[in-house]
């Protein structure tokens, strides 16, 4: 029985997913266009606006999980979105020196393909109630390649940005101060790199589990 609340929820989620899908589609389109016309050094500048918008919109997904609008546990959406926002704002936007690095290309393309499949998949399910089996397959299989390429790009970019972080003193709070507080963005970046060590296998394993459930269960039906 579709209550008003259910209808509203589906409407909202459909709109959300399709809008963000368009954002990522723009990212991929502009990325490939720039690669063909100019070269990887110019890729970031071409995709910056839609990338910042589409990636930041993902913050809403944490909210969706918290208020129970979607089933995804916050424990898996938080690290995923956390790392995305960190790379987008904390590395690429904050340190222009790294924007011409070739890993930006692999990063953006990995992210864009993954998100285009993901958002259109959820957009289909919320709007039309189903998604074709090839779509389901893509959603739960492309990560097998795109997670390693994406994660390697993330780790690589953080690593190559470290010298710029150290030199710039950006986001650092130094002592002395009356709250005896300090924050060193360089150490935080190194800590972030450290988190990838247990974090990546955890996320990969989680997706493998999701894949098994999604593809195995649909076969049974």
């Amino acid at each position, binding site marked *: 029985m579709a209550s008003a609340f259910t209808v509203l929820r589906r409407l909202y989620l459909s709109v959300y997913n399709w809008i963000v899908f368009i954002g990522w589609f723009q990212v991929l389109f502009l990325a490939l266009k720039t690669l063909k016309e100019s070269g990887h050094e110019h890729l970031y500048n071409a995709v910056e606006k839609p990338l910042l918008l589409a990636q930041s919109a993902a913050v809403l997904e944490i909210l969706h999980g918290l208020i129970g609008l979607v089933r995804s546990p916050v424990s898996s959406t938080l690290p995923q979105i956390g790392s995305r926002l960190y790379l987008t704002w904390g590395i690429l936007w904050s340190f222009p020196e790294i924007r011409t690095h070739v890993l930006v290309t692999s990063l953006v393309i990995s992210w864009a393909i993954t998100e285009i499949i993901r958002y259109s998949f959820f957009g289909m399910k919320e709007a039309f109630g189903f998604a074709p089996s090839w779509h389901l397959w893509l959603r739960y299989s492309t990560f097998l390649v795109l997670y390693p390429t994406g994660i390697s790009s993330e780790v690589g970019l953080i690593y190559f940005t470290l010298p710029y972080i150290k030199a710039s003193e950006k986001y650092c709070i130094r*002592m002395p101060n*009356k*709250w*005896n*507080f300090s924050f060193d963005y360089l150490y935080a970046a190194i800590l972030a790199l450290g988190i990838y060590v247990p974090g990546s296998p955890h996320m990969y394993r989680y997706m493998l589990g999701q894949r098994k459930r999604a593809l195995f269960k649909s076969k049974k039906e």
Partner: protein
Amino acid sequence: MKVSLVSRSGREFIKGGLELNDSATVADLQEAIHKRTKKFYPSRQRLTLPVPSGSRERPVVLNYKKSLKDYCDGNENSLTVVFKDLGPQVSYRTLFFFEYLGPLILYPVFYYFPVYKFFGYKGDVLPVHPVQTYALYYWCFHYFKRIMETFFVHRFSHATSPLSNVFRNCAYYWTFGAYIAYYVNHPLYTPVGDLQMKIGFGFGLVCQLANFYCHIILKNLRGPDGSGGYQIPRGFLFNIVTCANYTTEIYQWLGFNIATQTFAGYVFLVVAASIMTNWALAKHRRLKKLFDGKDGRPKYPRRWIILPPFL
């Protein structure tokens, strides 16, 4: 009587079951299981009565002191018991000792040794402010007190804790210990005014003494035989708050932070307070459920849970 032992999936855990005296206790059963399996010493065994499938009730855990007969409802000659392996166990005393040892040893390292040279600071790096010395004494006294209470005061509800908790708890205490010690003993540390320092440490010490007295009261609620069990705590602050021991512990850390004023110290205070609040909610709930006023049991009085006037 014959005891059939099954795993939670229903599979027979010990082929053929175990044969025990009709007057045997649960402890005897545990011994028998240990004899047959060698790997599963008693503190690793969790024995429960089977719960009908689909039922959402919590299973009845077998108490080691009771006789098996008490759990046979009807059929005196056989009993089915569900076995769960709790994993390798360590005694609570061992766990507490190691988790408290870290802060006790790590903090003085930041005070006495010029570790800040490794962080790039040159010249004179050792602490110079009196508050830093008092903080060292206060901190070390606190963890020394905790270790002493572990061995001479506390009576635990369970004898053991899973081994994995050693790593988890030590990571928590040792990391926070180093994190706070780093800032309080830092060459660029900024002390608060003298009066604030005295108020902080004074208040903290009073709370530590109160906390010790709370522990003594809790100890006297249980017999020395390690049988655990729960009673309604009474006297002193327990008359108004269920977990007065946690309350005094939280306020004691507040005193330390008022005196030393570091962001790191306050983060620790917030985290520790939330952990203790979780425990307090569970304990309060358990006591209210146990002491419901029925069947001659006393009714648990109306009290604050942990932090009046909020909770």
